[in-house]
């Protein structure tokens, strides 16, 4: 550093270096400020429309009377179905890949396949859902069809995160368990899963929060945007969901609907942030107990 200061060959070297540092700092500031701008914009626009009435009313042709009840309930049902389907299958697949499958071509193939599935655009899953669940299986535009589609969207993420938590358990734990005569499943059930659980739960919650915000696959399977009832039968009834409702309101030309959309976004973000907070809490709560 000192040499650079005193060398006369490059009088501006130090200055250029400072400028570059500032530039990079500015980029960081810009990235973060977008988030703040977004939040500020949404809250300042939507705060006025947010009320108990808004939460418990049906959508309407009039912006002032519009509410988010059917979308909120629809989203809750969808997340429920997605969680019930994706958690056992995802965690099961992760256990298989980490604990059962020996390193082989077949395992590499499955692994590459999962990594690529994670990168497939969600709208493509929507088209798959449309062709497979809605048409071929005749589930129509039901909550189950939506939940199945969202399950496929989040499954790769659940698998990858669960694999990571399982991999983080030291192999000495496995060896000790086997040495005491435990079978493979006893080792998994009594040793690995309890330790890996906080990590798996965190991954699951993050995946479900992704599912909660997904609109594209649901639009592709033809989810309704104007629903004035809550689904009674998961197999037959149509549904709406928070992101679809927000999309629909934002798509309206009238300013009034944009304010309602902002209020809807606040509801969505509050749900998302509380889910994330839960994930952080779980991670901190349970990770303290384990001491190797």
């Amino acid at each position: 550093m000192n040499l650079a200061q005193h060398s006369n060959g490059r009088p501006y070297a130090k200055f250029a270096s400072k400028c570059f540092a500032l530039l990079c700092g500015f980029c960081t500031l810009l990235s973060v400020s977008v988030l703040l701008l977004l939040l500020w914009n949404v809250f300042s626009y939507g705060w006025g429309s947010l009320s108990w009435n808004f939460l418990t009313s049906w959508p309407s042709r009039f912006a002032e009377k519009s509410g988010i009840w059917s979308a909120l309930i629809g989203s809750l049902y969808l997340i429920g179905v997605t969680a019930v389907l994706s958690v056992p299958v995802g965690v099961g697949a992760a256990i298989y890949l980490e604990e059962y499958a020996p390193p082989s071509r077949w395992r590499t193939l499955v692994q590459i396949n999962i990594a690529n599935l994670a990168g497939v655009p969600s709208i493509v899953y929507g088209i798959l859902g449309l062709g497979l669940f809605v048409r071929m299986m005749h589930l129509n535009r039901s909550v189950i069809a939506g939940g199945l589609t969202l399950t496929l969207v989040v499954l790769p993420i659940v698998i990858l995160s669960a694999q990571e938590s399982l991999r983080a358990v030291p192999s000495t734990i496995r060896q000790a368990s086997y040495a005491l005569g435990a079978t493979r499943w006893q080792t998994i059930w009594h040793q690995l899963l309890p330790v890996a659980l906080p990590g798996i739960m965190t991954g699951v919650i993050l995946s479900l929060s992704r599912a909660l915000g997904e609109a594209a696959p649901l639009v592709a399977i033809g989810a309704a945007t104007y629903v004035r009832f809550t689904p009674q039968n998961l197999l037959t009834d149509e549904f709406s969901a928070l992101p679809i409702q927000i999309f629909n309101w934002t798509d309206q030309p009238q300013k009034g609907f944009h304010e309602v959309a902002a209020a809807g976004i606040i509801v969505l973000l509050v749900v998302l942030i509380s889910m994330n907070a839960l994930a952080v809490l779980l991670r901190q709560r349970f990770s303290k107990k384990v001491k190797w």
Partner: protein
Amino acid sequence: MPSLATTETLIASSGRKSFRVVFEGFLHLMLLACAVVSIITTVGIVLVLLIESLQFFRDVSVWEFLTGTKWSPLLKPQHFGILPLFCGTFLVAAGSALVAIPIGLGTAIFLSEYASPIVRDIVKPLLEVLAGIPSVVFGYLAVVFVSPIIKSLFASADLFNAANACIVVGFMILPTIVSLSEDVLRSVPRSLREAAYALGATKLDVTIGVVVPAAMSGIMASFLLAIARAVGETMAVTLAAGATPRLTLNPLESIQTMTAYIVQVSQGDTPAGTLEYRTIFAVGLTLFIFTLLLNVIAQWILSRVREKYE
């Protein structure tokens, strides 16, 4: 795991094997079935897309589909040239990359080379939150916030235009670039940096001349993954960029992307089995192949990077 085989053989030979062995075998099969679901998903995607697309290509030649310069399947006279949709997708992907790459790389360099641990601990979670914000919210931001600004700057701009979409999608894919690039930048060995400092280099020389080139392949992979996300991005683009399939490179005009077209058809009441209905499968197939290619290349680069530093 040799100990494992021994345990199971022991149990098997101990006489009271029946229940436990059957149970273990049953669980093994169940877990295998879970893993197979991922394979079935891929096969399902490919089959569904291919079957409907093949029927589509019986009525419309592949040549017309790939080289036609007009896209109007929902209006008479019908034209089925995907180039305008392709052009729209390209415009949004390129524009958002133009926004996200400099800002993202700058942020990644700042976080890995300059920021104190405290700043990093504040900025990284914030970027994670940004990554978790649903795409429809970015679409809202484009309509309510970005579009009026662009309209006031360029009077000739359409209300919904590609530039709108580029800006919001750029910030959407930013976290992908930052988190991946930062990882590879930090994994560059400290000794490389110190060797450069010892030769009298400034921090700028070290960063641009040593650290970034060493991490280049990983950075490239992050760009590719981000671009793949921009290509597949749907809701924000649908809301922000308009619905006019048009062969143009002018970002101020209203355009339509492949994803936005799929949404447009899905929202209407196009009956199943018609040619119009099948267009979304043909467009979906194109989109799938395109993003798959980008992802495969990026994964390949990343796997090589991991080998290098492990």
